[in-house]
């Protein structure tokens, strides 16, 4: 007798009165949930459903609904349904648990425990629709000294920098983890918005080279697709040391996802695993990091700013202080709630620290050491809306990276099944018929709408505080107050309590 340890997590409900038997749900579901029985009657296999809502969203008569399966184990505070089923899963396969997107565990979200200030009486607030409001952001090393030549003229000694119309960038998502159409939408939107997107570590598809001025190209431990033309193609180069969702471990794109185009872009054979080692084996110290920074600067004739991306972990401020001395122009810090195409569940759920605390600690440390202006700080890993951005900038960030929010704008429904490669929304998949579902032009428009709306919101909140330039908000922690935080948390965040 076969025993099934796994009850389906969701139930697919079909309203028989509404259903017109069209069968669109069958073609739309790549997970093969919907099918017809021998008599042609529509059925649903609940156990295959990942709750991505594609069938619900495409059903022309709203006949479908997906609900949580109410089946339950005997209640136990220590042993949740997930704990129990994961043990079944590992007992059956002997495998490491693999999951996608950011951690779903209930850790404190500090963004939601921080409140923003507004002007009343003593300092007039500003209406951004009627008065100038500056969100233009420059990332890179800021020279503090002015040099004069023999004639007393100022020597223009500019270090390379990035210019953004608004302090938001699309964070690294590789071609492989997401589809080419998703990359196209991000690239086109970045150009329209005059910001940058990051192509991630899988190389840059040849059709996207024309967007180079709005592209950050990434060099990770696998060095996939890295060659001189690639290094020259972007506006900046990011060395990926770590990722918030999986600090301390490498990456693995399975051979099944390496199709012809990805193979060409990553410069590895089709169907071949792409493994990124956990560390860069040429970097075991800050001095070694400096060496790679310098290699990339030499290779691009000192014309591109170099970003070093690390995951937020314990002692992050010391790490960032070291990186600031490695010659990097920009440091990107990725918080532990950041997303991923696939990461071991236990690492995703337990390793790293919240970006809010990491950011505050790093900004403070760099200020104390007098080197805050020698680098820009970009933070990512759980930025959900414009208020998170205001709080991040007031805590000391120069700009933010968004990944998950951008994918949601493209249609992602957060079902967290990216690693399976059957994304019904055409985002985290390489199956051609699925990728085609994501229209890059439409995606571009949705991304432009999102970032434009956020920028208006940023301006409104800044105006409310009586601040008319993003520069004046950066590190302005007096604009923030904590709520429901203990004294130590307030100290690390460097903010006062609400009411103070």
């Amino acid at each position, binding site marked *: 007798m076969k025993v099934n340890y796994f009850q389906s997590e969701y139930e697919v409900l079909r309203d028989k009165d509404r259903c017109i038997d069209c069968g669109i749900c069958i073609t739309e579901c790549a997970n093969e949930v919907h099918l017809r029985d021998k008599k042609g009657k529509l059925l649903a296999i609940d156990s295959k459903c990942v709750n991505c809502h594609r069938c619900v969203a495409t059903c022309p008569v709203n006949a479908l609904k997906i609900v949580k399966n109410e089946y339950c184990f005997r209640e136990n505070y220590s042993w949740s349904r997930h704990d129990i089923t994961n043990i079944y899963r590992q007992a059956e396969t002997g*495998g490491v648990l693999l999951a996608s997107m950011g951690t779903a565990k209930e850790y404190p979200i500090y963004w939601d425990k921080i409140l923003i200030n507004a002007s009343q009486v003593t300092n007039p607030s500003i209406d951004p629709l009627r008065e100038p409001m500056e969100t233009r952001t420059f990332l890179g090393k800021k020279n503090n000294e002015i040099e004069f030549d023999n004639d007393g003229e100022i020597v223009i000694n500019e270090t390379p920098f990035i210019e953004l119309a608004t302090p938001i960038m699309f964070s690294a998502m590789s071609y492989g983890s997401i589809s080419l159409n998703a990359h196209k939408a991000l690239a086109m939107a970045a150009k329209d918005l005059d910001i940058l997107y990051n192509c991630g570590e899988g190389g840059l598809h040849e059709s996207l080279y024309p967007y180079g001025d709005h592209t950050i190209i990434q060099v990770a431990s696998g060095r996939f697709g*890295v060659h*001189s033309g690639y290094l020259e193609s972007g506006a900046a180069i990011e060395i990926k040391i770590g990722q918030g969702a999986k600090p301390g471990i490498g990456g693995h794109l399975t051979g099944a996802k390496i199709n012809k185009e990805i193979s060409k872009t990553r*410069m590895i054979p089709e169907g071949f695993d792409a493994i990124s*080692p956990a560390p860069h084996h040429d970097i075991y110290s800050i001095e070694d990091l400096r060496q790679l920074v310098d290699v990339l600067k030499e290779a691009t004739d000192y014309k591109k700013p170099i970003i070093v991306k690390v995951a937020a972990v314990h002692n992050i401020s010391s790490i960032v202080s070291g990186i600031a001395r490695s010659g990097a122009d920009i440091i990107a810090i990725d918080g532990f709630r950041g997303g991923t195409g696939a990461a071991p569940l236990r690492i995703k759920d337990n390793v790293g620290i919240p970006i809010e605390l990491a950011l505050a600690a790093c900004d403070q440390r760099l200020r104390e050491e007098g080197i805050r202006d020698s680098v820009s700080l970009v933070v990512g890993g759980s930025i959900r809306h414009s208020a998170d951005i205001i709080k991040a900038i007031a805590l000391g960030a120069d700009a933010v990276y968004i990944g998950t929010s951008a994918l949601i704008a493209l249609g992602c429904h957060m079902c967290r099944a990216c690693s399976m490669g059957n994304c019904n929304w055409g985002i985290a998949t390489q199956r051609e018929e699925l990728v085609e579902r994501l229209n890059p032009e439409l995606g571009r428009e949705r991304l432009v709408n999102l970032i434009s709306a956020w920028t208006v919101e940023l301006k409104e909140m800044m105006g409310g505080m009586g601040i008319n330039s993003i520069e004046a908000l950066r590190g302005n922690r007096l604009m923030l107050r904590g709520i429901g935080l203990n004294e130590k948390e307030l100290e690390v965040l460097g903010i006062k309590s609400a009411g103070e």
Partner: protein
Amino acid sequence: MKYIDAKDLHYKELNKLIRYEEDTHVTLTNVMGQRFIGCALEGKNIDITGIPGNALGACLNGGSIITVHNNCQDATGDTMDDGEIIVHGNSGDTAGYAMRGGKILIKESGGYRMGLHMKAYNERQPLMIVGNRVGSFCGEYLAGGTIIVLGYRENGNCPVGNFCGTGMYGGRIFLRSNELPKDLSPYIDASVATIEELESIREEVTSFCSLFDITNIDLDKDNFYILSQSKVNEYKKKYTTV
């Protein structure tokens, strides 16, 4: 032929001189640890006397040949794409890290992590030959290309340190040796190289030996082992999706 005396030159000045030099053949003398020589260079030959510093020929491109008449330091040919680096001496650690094409030829010995994560793509088949021996972790994560360690002063003893080829998932490692490394990973297949396998490297090994005047290597008589990825894919069963 352009001669540059590298004495007292900072690496930035030296590399700028090389980059903007119109002559395609540059000879450097008195090189003393300057880093990044020939970084991302394309279509130029560089001849070096002295000791070049770390990351010699990093991101090297096609049509370039860098010849070193002495030893070189760490990270030689890091992420190189094509071209040749010839060292008439020893190499430090991590030479050929992530190289995707071209050749690195080292007459004597190399340090730790030689040929780490080399990978191949179509016509780009990177090759590293080391005349004598290498340290630990040689060919770790190897994804493609060929590493040959000849042990020409080793009298048939194993010419590699510990953990040779750990995590390799492509490519080949040839060892001229009468014994296999004692700690070989179970995910590596090791066997005595067949005649066909030896034929595939004959031309390269022969020209390596004549280039460096090495006379005691005989492909027909000496024992060569070949290491490759095991048929059992260690990654296949690793994960279970939540």
